[in-house]
């Protein structure tokens, strides 16, 4: 795996994890 690709992949995965984390927090707080 080349370095630039690994960096892009990590950035995209981090952003996705952040969004999924926010959705999970929304569900946990309000849907019970």
């Amino acid at each position, binding site marked *: 795996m080349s370095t630039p690709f690994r960096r892009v992949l990590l950035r*995209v995965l981090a952003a996705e994890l952040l969004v999924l984390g926010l*959705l*999970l927090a929304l*569900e946990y707080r*309000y849907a019970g």
Partner: protein
Amino acid sequence: MHWINWAIVLGYLAYISIDGIRRAKGTKKLEGYFLGNRSLPWWVVGLSVMATQLSAITMIGTTGQGANDGMRFVQFYFGLPVAMVILGVTLVPFLHRAKVYTAYEFLERRFDARTRSLTSLLFLLSRGLSCGTIIAAPAVVFSSIFGLSMPYAVALIGVPTVLYTMIGGIQAVAWTDVKQMLLIIIAIVAIIVVLLVRIPVDPDSALRIAGAAGRLQVFDFDFTLTKQYTFWSGIIGGTFLMMSYFGTDQSQVQRYLTAKTVDEARSSHLISAYWKIPLQALVLLIGVLVFVFYVFTPPPLYYNPAQGERVRAADPAAYAAVSERYDVALARRTDAARALAHTSRDADAAAREALREGDREVAAVRADAMKAATVAGAKAATDVNYIIPHFVLTQLPLGLAGLFIAAVFAAAMSSVAGELASLSSTTVIDFYRRWVRKEADDAHFLMVSRAATGAWGVFACVVATFAADLGSLIEVVNRFGSFFYGSILGVFLLAMIPRTRGSGAFYGLIAGMTVVGAVNYGAPSVAFLWHNVVGAVTVVTVGVLFGRTPREVAA
């Protein structure tokens, strides 16, 4: 609708048509017409990709789904970011460096003419009809709400789109997409702000009400192949589907082939990778907030006015009885929501249960009302697509309703324009120039390309006009489309494995479609997202089993 709202919608239609048509000056050659002279900036390509993917069905169907079913549909997109990154190092550089006009052209260079012709034919069959349904979905809603006849509603969306795509080519498509995407985002944000202002409780209480009614349930970690939308089907099946759609479907491939460089093509995809899930969550949140709004403001029994009128005319007594039950159920749900909003979070279990019970009762009465509509002869036994248009036209302030309707037009037009451009490029490059007339000057091919765009536009409008009568046929074609989506991805993946053969690709494609068909008929309850995995894996397996060209021959 108030004349000011109509003026905004017609103003938008006039502006976007003129803006698209004036792009014709950069389309003197075939490369300009189909690929924008391979010179578009990455952000234009990226926004255009997003605009094509976001159709009117998203604006009125997905929002309605949010109101009825909540946020769980967002799981469908969980595989998209990963798919975009994988495409950035696989198919995007492959196809961009190959300097092809269509994705299928690449398959002939790599494999053979029959694989190219079969994949492009499958694309034309499915996209040609789906283009009609993209126009039909909003046209059906608008014709019912505004009392327009179906041909007029179709023409309102179809005629400007066909005109600017035919004259301005892909440059018109991409640049109008940017403006349409901005309009859509402004409309989405504006409607959320209005909803937050109009709901009579604070945002925290509104979300507690939505949560108690099950509308904020996002994740389903159940690994069951028969469930349509789960975390796993989204992450695994969704990755394959998104790789197939964004990596091999000409309506998307054509867009990133317009980018200046491979890096710009990759960057354009990253806009979707970062923003698609948040955008889709916002679209669903509109529906969730509309649900909360209608907890406090009594909604109609039928969001589709024509459906309500039909039931009332067929059986006035039954209509009155259902209406009475509905009013009682709504009042009970409103009382439960008010009680929940005034209960502290620590001791709200009973209030939540009361709201859930109230919501179940409302849903049960609505289900009976839909049954009555079917008995009365209504074609669609659901009115999910009418929830948001009803809210927009009865609740949004003057001007904003026009803005939202214009955004629905924008969503439909941007998708249709992208598909028309791709249908035209596939028709001309993969069939006309390949099989009918190989040698001619650019002026000739340009003329044929414009004619092909116009012809596909007329075909899509005819399909849209008769969509209601063609219902079962369109469903068959859509189902047929899901048979080969993963399989086509399999062919492109096979192309990246060194020395795999044309015969492996061709028979692998047929095997992939056959296996997906067998899964569909043998186990019809398996969710369609998994079909993409089955198709792609089958093609690659069969293709590899067919053997590889010996290294010395390949060299």
